[in-house]
């Protein structure tokens, strides 16, 4: 099946190619459409991706200005109508700034940009994004962010945990989750969360950068394969 995916381009977006390559890889080479942030309506799509980058330079707060883009109204409508939206890194920040996912992403606790590999644990598998993994599976991903420190108040965190909305947590390669395995100070080691209806996922790490052993790994591939499978069903 060929996936109709759209990638939103904000000024300063820079991981749209990485994402397009990953999506094309699982959809028989079909390239996703690129959607400019000034658009107000969307073509028919199965999936919208908000990719990584530094939208508007990450000035003021990461994702804050992008969340106010004209296109975001259409993205929100799409999600409210049950559409699937994936936000990675800057895309995750935009989703929280737009209020489409709870919480916020603060400056990394170490106050430095993190450009490195890290492991994360798959915390739930009942979404198209996570169904390709086993519960508790440890996957290796690329981190590339300065503001990935997930914050929400305790009530929100408890609700997310209770509803199975914590999708990924930072972990050691052997699967432990502790302060020592938390690269950026995120509350409860949260690397990604999913909406209650399991259709909107936001995560800081970059699964799209590990879809080819040549580039160092393919632990991200099951996410994209799962998306295609899920949306074909």
């Amino acid at each position: 099946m060929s996936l109709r995916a759209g990638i939103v381009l904000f000024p300063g977006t820079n991981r749209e190619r990485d994402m397009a390559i990953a999506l094309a890889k699982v959809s028989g080479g079909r390239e996703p459409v690129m959607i400019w942030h000034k658009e107000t309506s969307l073509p028919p799509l199965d999936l919208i991706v908000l990719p990584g980058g530094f939208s508007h330079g990450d000035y003021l707060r990461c994702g804050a200005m992008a969340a106010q883009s004209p296109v975001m109204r259409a993205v929100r409508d799409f999600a409210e109508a049950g559409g699937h939206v994936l936000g990675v890194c800057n895309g995750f920040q935009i989703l929280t700034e737009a209020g489409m996912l709870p919480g916020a992403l603060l400056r990394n606790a170490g106050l430095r940009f993190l450009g490195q590999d890290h492991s994360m644990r798959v915390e739930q598998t009942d979404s198209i994004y996570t169904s390709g993994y086993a519960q508790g599976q440890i996957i290796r991903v690329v981190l590339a962010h300065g503001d990935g420190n997930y914050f929400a108040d305790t009530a929100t965190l408890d609700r997310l945990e209770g509803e199975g909305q914590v999708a990924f947590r930072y972990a050691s390669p052997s699967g432990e989750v502790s302060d020592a395995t938390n690269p950026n100070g995120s509350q409860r080691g949260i690397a990604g969360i999913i909406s209650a209806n399991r259709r909107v996922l936001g995560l800081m790490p970059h699964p799209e950068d590990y879809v080819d052993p040549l580039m160092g790994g393919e632990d991200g591939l099951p996410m994209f394969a799962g998306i295609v499978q899920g949306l074909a069903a």
Partner: protein
Amino acid sequence: MKAIVTVMLKPGVLDPQGRAIGHALETLGFDGIGDVRAGKIIELELAETDAGKAKAAAEAMADKLLANTVIESYRVEVV
């Protein structure tokens, strides 16, 4: 008029930057340093000449864009 919007993290939100600054100041030999909080300040030149209206406008800007009220609080001053 000029509106000055000061944006600080809310009290319950950990402020690693403030903490790092406090730590660095101590390392530099300054003492008697308690809590340190880091925030942002945005100074806006506004065409508006009525102080009340300018303040209201700046507050609207803060609500909409300048502050993220999930984690931040703000105050507006008009000069």
